[in-house]
């Protein structure tokens, strides 16, 4: 079980870092699009 939690912890830190970076980059486009459509 200790190795299960080790793998899960590494996966959590790596996945969270990658997703945060990608969402921060792509989310700005989503916000612009949403505000443009709402103001349309």
């Amino acid at each position, binding site marked *: *079980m*200790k190795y*299960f*939690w*080790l793998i*899960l*912890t590494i*996966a*959590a*830190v790596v*996945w*969270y*870092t990658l*997703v*945060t970076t*990608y*969402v*921060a980059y*792509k*989310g700005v*486009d*989503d*916000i612009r*699009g*949403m*505000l443009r*459509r*709402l*103001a349309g």
Partner: protein
Amino acid sequence: MTNFNWLLDGSIVGLYLLVTMAAGLYVRKYVGKVDDFLVAGREMNVYLGIASLAATEFGIVTCMYTAEAGYKYGFAGATPGIAMALSMLVIGYTGFCIKPLRDSGVITIPQLIESRFGPRIRWAAGVVIVLGGLLNMGVFLRIGGQFLVQVIGLKVTSFDLWGFQIGYLEAMMTVLLLAVAAYTILGGMLSVLITDFLQFVVMSVGLIAVTVLILVYVGWDKIVATVDANYGAGGFNPFVHPDLGWQYVLFQVLLNFAAVLTWQTTIARVLAAKDSMTGQRIYVRTSFFFVCRFLIPGIWGMAALATLGQVTNTLDAMPAFLSSFVPAGLMGLCIAAMLAADMSTDSSYMLTWGSVIYNDIMAPFRKTAWSEKKGILINRMIVGLIGVFLLFYGLWYPLEGDVWTYLGITGTIYLASISVLLISACYWKRANSWGAAGSIILAAAIPVMFLILEKTPGTRDLAKAIGPYYSGIAAYAASGLAMVVFSLLKPRNGGNV
């Protein structure tokens, strides 16, 4: 002794608050209709949805109870995160319930329930959702204030203001609430989404930075050895932990599956999505976040155990550890991250429970349709009143037992029945208003009875003997059974509730 530096860390926190408030208030001008206020005009796309869902479902209270679970149960305390991630992955991938829900174009779940079970059941569903939701959220402000007071290291408990003694905890709670209420009342879901995005980024950077610091300076081996020494095999496997066991795991599976399906703040992201496919993608791609949500603060709690040893108040262990472990500079980022986490959660929760009050509880009392302007004004007043309730409930309610269990029991008041109602409405043709009424009454009665038993001195031991997990499982079982039995008892023609 805290490492918090008022000049350096205070500036970082101040800058974060300034940017968030400005962004939240800026978008209020886009709110022209009730739909804009409650579901952002249903214009939310995938990545904004991921940021918003993650930020909403991670507050200071989340960090506190997941760290407490890590401190008290070791790695086994992260089991609910795995249950929630798997539930979200399965539901997002298959579209179970959430596809018909989003396709129906409703704003809240009770609105869909009305189409199958009638207006009275919709009203009753709205009442239990708001009851469970507000009782659940009632402890958020106090715990958020408690964390900040502890991490900043305020030794004195109160200060003098114009002759009045004001407690720092109460002052923290009030300032937190006013900041969140300001942009939520003015901009509704639009402000919530924009600030959620900023808060997701700040929160995530802070969480990752502190976790890496812990893994480097406390060390994985020391954390594992501490859990092993304190809890043995039970610290890694919930089935063999003396305080957890199969009933804990089963309760977590039921609770988290129901929460992913019907927790209104979570499902609001599906309902605000552009279409059902976007909603499903948001669920699938956010699912693993819920492992991180339990495991990362859980490691903070285990690091507190490794560093501080056993302490009396397990809820305070993690903030006490952080206050002396995180260096100045990073402390400002850590507090900004926690403030971000808390503000995004509080704003979404206030708006969501407000939307159910407006849409489902007040609906039957409307003689004529309200104008968009009047609808927005009433929604703003409801959000403001919820804020006042939170402040007083948080000050008054004495929290006993661990926080996650309290949240699980109060959440079950509505999750047990509304999940059964939603599944039945979508997939069981024989389900009817008798079954729905029986399900709502039984599912709410069991957790409320348990809370009363727990709070009454004469029956406290009985509540302890039953335990929250058996009580929770009973609520889900009774709810499902009531739906089947009472639906079959109702004559096929007639027999109105």
